[in-house]
């Protein structure tokens, strides 16, 4: 039983680390503001959620696990909202979305 719980938490945390890596590659490689925000906004949200769920599973049934799950729910709502607000600020500031053929910004 202990093996299964540990394996499950390790799978979740490794999945989270994978999405962190892809989000970072997107941040470094994508051509403009909106595509970079697209990569980190989606990738980091899922990565943080998977990592925190992994920690909660590893902790077992306890108050600490409940607190970690509260943080996970908070991040899952707050991060997309923050991404949305930043992208709106970019549009209002007059940034034009990148189209194929243009140079990197």
């Amino acid at each position: 039983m202990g093996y299964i719980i540990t394996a499950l938490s390790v799978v979740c945390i490794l999945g989270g680390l994978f999405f962190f890596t892809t989000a970072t590659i997107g941040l470094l490689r994508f051509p403009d503001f909106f595509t970079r925000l697209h990569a980190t906004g989606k990738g980091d949200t899922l990565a943080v959620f998977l990592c925190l769920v992994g920690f909660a599973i590893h902790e077992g049934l306890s108050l600490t696990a409940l607190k970690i799950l509260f943080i996970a729910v908070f991040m899952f709502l707050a991060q997309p909202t923050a991404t949305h607000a930043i992208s709106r600020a970019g549009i209002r500031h007059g940034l034009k979305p990148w189209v194929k053929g243009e140079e990197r910004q």
Partner: protein
Amino acid sequence: MIASSDDIIIKTIARIFVPFIQLYALYVIMHGHYSPGGGFQGGVILGASMALLLITHGYDEVKRRLPEGVVMLLGSVGVLIYAGIGLTCLLLGGNYLDYSQLSVILHVDPAHARSLGILGVELGVGFTVMAIMYSIFFDISTGGILPGDEKRNEELENNG
């Protein structure tokens, strides 16, 4: 001056989050004397929740919920609680903020009196820090120019 956001997603999420952020701030204050946290940290979180309300719902909404007079009153009451507890200990024959002296008026043993005394001081610190953090954010975000205060605004314009 900050106007209300016209985006329903940002406004709704902020409206849902603000009570939970304030509940968490109270948790941080209440657990300050035996876990990480305390009056200052909890007060900053409370002030941040009001700042979130200010940047999402605008000046008028926040002014309706927390007028500036109440903010200054909260800041002063916090200092009064802190100094009052300290001076009570002094009057009961101990040092300033020597909480164990409070056992005489609280009718508990000195160890409990220390715990309760620290909790009271943390509450006072929390009130003051919340009021001052919010006040600083408010003054910076409005640039000192308040809607409704026409006389002061004219003075500011004339002085450049």
